[in-house]
């Protein structure tokens, strides 16, 4: 199966899901699970060739002149992510079928779900930054739809909007950064980006900043971490899939992808390391303050995302390899824990850690899954999480700068993580059985299969890491192509400093675990939501709405003349600005060749215009308008436009007649506006007139383009068989314009007739 086919199959599954739900009912999920399962298989068979050094690529032209290609590339990193997306996707699709059983909008859920899955696949497989950006935004959009799936609850809608605004706002920054990179080096193919040219470019700090904002918002890095706990309003399968295993890793993935191109500069290292480090400590700390299982897991996810970013920032080959291993370990255990949390919620009706207890007898399989996953989370031998954690510590110890600080921060993040793992493993399952909203029971196979498979996989890979060694080595080679291949993963690293730190974090975690209730109270009493970055988001949103209301009050007055004045001032002002800055030749008011009769007509028109504007008599102003009109006809006549002169005379005569007919039905003039208002309008009008006069003079004396009328003059007789060129243009070359003109007249005539008729009927009715 080609990668393009894989994407199309995924999007196709999304498209047919709603219709399928109507026919297949409760079998929908089972049937649709086959799609990600098949895709997973198609990616599994790509692993062996990749490990042998063959990277599959596909390239389809999309909009080549915009440097946009659909180039797909299954290198180690992309393949690792694709396997996670499709593998966990299959388990979650199966799980969701039971979790949302009987939900009337299950079909719509699968539409969003598979739309997300395929976008995410496109994101990780894209080798073109613009294509990646498009998929990136698609994942934000589908995430929005999934968080707000329960759209009748306003907290869901607010959380969905918050996630959307934060991630899409970051997406806009990313787009600008990507475009800057493209115009700096002339290519957007990730595998061809020249790192040196980018890093020495004068705009490099801006590109880096914009790309980092995109990656940090997507991966919920401090201070943008607040949207991720909010996203827990989504159904639990969505939280497990999007907001722990896949989408939130997109930012980390992008950073990893761009490491060869943008990385290894002091700016990159300090920005990425500090933000990642702050995120992991803040996330771990906040996780201790929660009672809701999903919120605990969400904050722990923030912590892990911070760790991954932190490792990318350290940038050594060792740290990058640790990042890949830790990413895989986290996806497996966090997916399992989220799904298990959903199963507990489903079975008992609550997710409150304080209320839960003694579930091990009623839910043995879920208990087993959670124990295994929590062991991996805490980094106990022999889970995969242990190997990941050892590598993270090794990476921190070997940090190129301030290894003590790096190690300390890691320890500070991992101690609460161990305590959280212990809380999750012990509290709900052991101790006395408690009163719960529902009697607990083990869910159907679809609901325990997912967590169990994922957590057992975490154990198996911990015992036999050689199974994924080749793939993971290829994945870290994407980020550090020049580095020697990392040593093979082993279940046991021997007695070294990293092991000592592991033991220290376990001991510290145990201590925190026993002090957990006091800590939780103290952290939640800080009321971080009152002054944290989430509050900043609320203030910004409220401020924007206030500004919009203020602007509406200012601009939308409902008075025609205010709109008119505003438009004229804006257009006239911009025109004047363009004239002042752009005109190459200023008009010369040199002595002229003016004939006396031409001057006389001009003076007459000006006088008539002034009279029309000043007079208090309706008849006088209509007459003055007529004088202007016939003056225009004379100008046409003087300067070689007899057809125009003729038309203008007829039309002007008709206009005056219409006005005179209507005049006595229309109100007399009254002085309605005040003197200052009139003076202001005189000022605006005179300024506008001056701008237009100057525009004309500058235009005439600065011909920007050669006239295109030569074609019509040459082809009028040979092509149009007419000797009056204006006529030929109207009825032949530009006949469609004339048709439009006739249509306008016809519509106006219909409108006039309808208005007059309506007036008569109303009149008789009264």
């Amino acid at each position, binding site marked *: 199966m080609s990668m393009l086919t894989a994407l199309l199959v995924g999007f196709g599954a999304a498209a047919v899901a709603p219709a399928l739900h109507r026919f297949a009912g409760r079998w929908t999920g089972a049937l649709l699970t086959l799609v990600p399962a098949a895709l997973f298989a198609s990616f599994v068979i790509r692993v062996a060739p990749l490990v042998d050094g063959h990277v599959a690529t596909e390239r389809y032209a999309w909009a080549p002149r915009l440097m946009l290609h659909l180039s797909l590339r299954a290198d180690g990193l992309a393949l690792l992510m694709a396997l996670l997306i499709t593998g966990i996707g299959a388990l979650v699709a199966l799980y969701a079928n039971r979790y949302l059983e009987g939900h009337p909008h299950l079909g719509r859920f699968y539409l969003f779900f598979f739309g997300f899955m395929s976008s995410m696949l496109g994101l990780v497989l894209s080798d073109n930054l613009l294509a990646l950006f498009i998929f990136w935004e698609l994942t934000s959009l589908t995430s929005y739809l999934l968080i707000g799936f329960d759209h009748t609850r306003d907290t869901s809608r607010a959380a969905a909007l918050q996630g959307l605004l934060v991630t899409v706002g970051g997406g806009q920054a990313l787009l600008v950064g990507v475009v800057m990179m493209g115009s700096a080096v002339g290519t957007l193919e990730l595998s061809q980006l020249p790192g040196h040219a980018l890093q020495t470019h004068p705009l490099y700090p801006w590109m880096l900043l914009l790309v980092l904002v995109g990656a940090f918002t997507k991966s919920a890095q401090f201070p943008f971490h607040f949207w991720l706990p909010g996203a827990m309003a989504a159904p639990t399968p969505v939280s497990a899939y999007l907001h722990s295993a896949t989408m939130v890793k997109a930012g980390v993935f992008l950073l990893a992808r761009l490491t060869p191109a943008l990385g290894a500069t002091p700016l990159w290292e300090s920005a990425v390391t500090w933000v990642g480090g702050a995120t992991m400590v803040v996330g771990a700390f906040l996780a201790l303050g929660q009672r809701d299982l999903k919120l605990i897991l969400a904050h722990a996810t923030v912590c892990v995302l911070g760790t991954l970013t932190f490792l990318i920032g350290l940038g050594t080959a060792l740290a990058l390899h640790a990042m890949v291993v830790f990413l895989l370990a986290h996806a497996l255990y966090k997916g399992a824990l989220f799904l298990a949390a959903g199963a507990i919620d489903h079975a008992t009706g609550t997710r409150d850690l304080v209320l839960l207890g003694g579930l091990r007898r009623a839910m043995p399989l879920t208990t087993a899954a959670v124990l295994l996953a929590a062991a991996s989370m805490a980094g106990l031998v022999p889970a995969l999480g242990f190997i990941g954690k050892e590598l993270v510590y090794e990476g921190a110890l070997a940090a190129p700068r301030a290894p003590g600080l790096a190690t300390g921060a890691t320890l500070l993040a991992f101690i609460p993580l161990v305590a959280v793992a212990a809380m999750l493993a012990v509290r709900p399952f052991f101790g006395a059985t408690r009163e719960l909203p529902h009697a607990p029971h083990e869910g159907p196979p679809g609901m325990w299969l997912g967590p169990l498979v994922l957590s057992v996989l975490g154990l198996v890979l911990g015992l036999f890491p050689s199974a994924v060694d080749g793939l993971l080595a290829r994945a870290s080679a994407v980020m550090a192509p020049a580095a020697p291949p990392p040593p093979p993963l082993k279940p046991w690293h021997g007695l070294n400093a990293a092991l000592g730190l592991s033991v220290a974090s376990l001991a510290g975690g145990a201590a925190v675990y026993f002090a957990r209730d006091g800590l939780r109270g103290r952290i939640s009493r800080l009321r971080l939501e009152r002054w944290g970055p989430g509050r900043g988001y609320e203030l910004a949103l409220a401020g924007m709405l206030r500004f919009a209301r203020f602007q509406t009050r200012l601009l939308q007055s409902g008075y*025609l*003349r205010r709109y008119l004045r505003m438009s004229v001032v804006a257009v006239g002002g911009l025109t004047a600005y363009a004239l002042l800055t752009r005109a190459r030749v200023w008009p010369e*008011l040199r*002595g002229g060749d*003016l004939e006396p009769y*031409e001057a006389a007509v*001009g003076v007459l*028109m000006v006088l008539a*215009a*002034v009279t*029309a504007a000043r007079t208090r008599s309706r008849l006088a*102003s209509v007459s003055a*308008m007529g004088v202007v009109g016939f003056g*225009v006809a004379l*100008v*046409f006549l*003087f*300067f*070689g*436009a007899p*057809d*125009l002169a003729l*038309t*203008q005379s007829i039309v002007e005569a008709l*206009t005056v007649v219409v006005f005179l007919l*209507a005049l006595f039905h*229309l*109100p*007399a*003039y*009254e002085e*309605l506006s005040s003197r200052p208002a009139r003076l202001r*309008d*005189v000022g605006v009008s005179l300024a506008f*007139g*001056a701008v*237009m*006069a100057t525009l*004309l*003079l500058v235009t*005439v004396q600065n011909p920007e383009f050669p*006239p295109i*009328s030569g074609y019509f*003059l040459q082809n*009028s*007789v040979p092509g149009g068989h007419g*000797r*009056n*060129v204006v006529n030929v*243009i*109207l009825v032949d070359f530009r006949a469609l*314009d*004339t048709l439009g*003109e006739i249509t*306008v007249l016809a519509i106006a005539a219909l*409108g*006039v007739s309808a*208005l*007059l008729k309506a*007036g008569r009927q109303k009149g008789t009715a009264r």
Partner: protein
Amino acid sequence: MTLETLLALVIGALYAAGLYMMLRRSVVKLVIGLALLAHASNLLVFTGVGLTRGRAPLVPEEATVPAPGVADPLAQALVLTAIVISFGLLVFTVVLLYRAHQAVGSPDLDAMRSTEE
């Protein structure tokens, strides 16, 4: 003074007078202002391509192309269309205001802000 300068002054005066009348609250002034603005725009396009005294873009009987230096036919065609359309617009506006005046009973545009009768 050159030809273009004269016409620029005329056009400027027409724009200023037309705009001033459109900014008034009286409905009739609004329509007359609209008419003046239409004249100004037609003249602007006509003058913008350059003026030629007295030589219409016509092809003599014996030739297939007009003599060099005739007036620009394209601007004339555009202006011709514009004259007719602005006439249609003007007549429609006059009738609309006539009806609106019947319904509202005030010469003041500010009295026409509501959609209710």
